[in-house]
């Protein structure tokens, strides 16, 4: 802001060549304007990641670090002791994948309903969808613990109704509980992008498809669905990527079987006190996510290219 202020002051006096350059060069002004934001984001995003990569070559020594670079933690990750972390990464990916499929499969019809069936008060529906997400994430996850727990709402409700005698124990503390909770907690992130891309579809295209003899199913598969792909892909990524590293959900409703990689990373920085190994696990997790997302986008892109050809 001050930069613009001074620049404006300088130009109004219209004196030197520098301010002339300033006035003419749009890119210079644009870059100056964005530089504070950029410096902050760079300092808090890129710098920490570089430091973490550097740290992954250190060795934990009690509460201190031996800063001589070593591949020790990578060796642990690739050796016999690392198998458990690879398994956890695999399990986290699988749980996030099932949660993503569940979220998107449930969100798509809802978004479709909002885009095509609702004609008035669309905004009201959008607000209706987002209100549950104004409770804290923590309490939303906790609510599922209340529902699924040993003395929880389902069990006490069913006992009250006389349908069961003993509480069902398989409801909580397993991967399914995590998947259900994630499917609930991330719903808005899937509904909104899919809704936006469905809403954008030119309705005359649908009429054209009908006029040219497509039935509802064929019309959906050949027109509506392909055109909603951008939103659907965004929804898949917006749910999949953050949930792989989730910590709250698995620790509240996952139990031991539902533990995810985020829990073991947090443990390395906490009780287990092995930050370099934690850094290695985080880096591996990021790389695996990046590769999977890249492959996914490539596959989608190629499909679309093939369709065009």
């Amino acid at each position, binding site marked *: 802001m001050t930069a613009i202020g001074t620049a404006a002051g300088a130009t109004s006096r219209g004196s030197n060549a520098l301010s002339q350059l300033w006035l003419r060069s749009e890119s210079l002004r644009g870059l100056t304007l964005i530089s504070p934001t950029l410096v902050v*984001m760079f300092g808090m995003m890129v710098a920490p990641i570089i430091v973490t990569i550097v740290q992954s070559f250190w060795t934990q020594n009690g509460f201190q670090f031996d800063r001589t670079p070593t591949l020790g933690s990578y060796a642990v990750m690739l050796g016999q002791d690392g198998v458990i972390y690879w398994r956890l990464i695999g399990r986290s990916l699988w749980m996030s994948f099932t949660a993503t499929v569940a979220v998107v499969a449930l969100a798509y019809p809802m978004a479709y309903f909002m885009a095509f069936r609702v004609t008035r008060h669309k905004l009201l529906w959008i607000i209706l969808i987002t209100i549950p997400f*104004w409770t804290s994430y923590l309490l939303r996850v906790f609510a599922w613990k209340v529902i699924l727990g040993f003395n929880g709402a389902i069990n006490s409700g069913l006992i009250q109704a006389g349908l069961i005698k003993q509480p069902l124990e398989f409801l909580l503390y397993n991967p399914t509980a995590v998947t259900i909770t994630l499917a609930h907690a991330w719903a808005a992130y899937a509904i909104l992008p899919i809704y936006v891309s469905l809403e954008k579809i030119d309705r005359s295209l649908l009429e054209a498809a009908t006029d040219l003899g497509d039935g509802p199913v064929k019309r959906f598969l050949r027109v509506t669905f392909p055109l909603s792909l951008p939103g659907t892909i965004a929804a898949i990524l917006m749910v999949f990527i953050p949930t792989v590293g989730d910590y709250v959900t698995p620790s509240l409703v996952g139990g031991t079987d539902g533990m995810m990689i985020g829990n073991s990373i947090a443990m390395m920085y906490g009780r287990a006190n092995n930050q370099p190994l934690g850094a290695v696990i985080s880096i591996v997790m990021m790389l695996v996510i990046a590769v999977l997302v890249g492959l996914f986008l490539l596959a989608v892109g190629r499909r679309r290219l093939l369709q065009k050809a």
Partner: protein
Amino acid sequence: MHSPTISRLLVTFAVCYLIFLYAPVLLLPLFSFNDNVYPNFPLKGFTLKWYQQMLRDQPLLDALWASARVGIAVSFVSTVLGLFAAKAMTRYSFPGKGTITSLIMLPLVVPSIILGIALLTLVRQVFDLDLSLITVTASHVLICVPLAMLVLMARLEGFDKNLEEASFDLGEGAWRTFWRVTFPLILPGLVSSFLLCFTTSFDEFLLAFFLSGTQPTLPIYIYGLLRFPTKIPGVLAMGSCILMISILVVAFSEWFRRRGIDSQQGSIV
């Protein structure tokens, strides 16, 4: 456009889905009025004692106040930084725009746990700072700037660039143009950016988990309480109050946004 069967199926699905979305959330206020320490059925009777318990729980109120302060600082800083970025993005062309956009957006697609441990390492190993509400604030700014930028870009793209140029032509400088033309026009955007950043920060757990020191934020404090069954009703009461306030805030911001759009259309047409 749809056959009646499909239509009916869609409506049924939508209703069921809304129940799925609302049921868990509505259980919290329900059990917060229930005269039973354990949140389960059958309901025993109406009580307000959990709300009284909540008001007596000084650490809980301290955590609430800490979260509120962090949230206000975060929304202010993020909205200002987001405004710089959004203005540069919408009004100027410069080299490296794509790369810069992806850099600013990056925190939205990196799992929070990675951001948390990376910032923790930076703060402790490079700067050797103590963890405090300030480090929490800094970490929240990281995830809120992209949100603020997105909201403000939408707003800046929405109004006529000529209005700013007219102000320049009429002899106003950049600073006064901003305050007299741009600022009033984007005010609704600033308000929604502020609210979005505040709620994001207020609800954020994982970054605060790694970066808070002795003074916990509300989510951190609540997370600690969830292990103690006797404390849970107070937490439910607090959660219900937050839900109520959020709904009021959303209603207010929606009203404000609409008012903004109406007055803007009025002034241009």
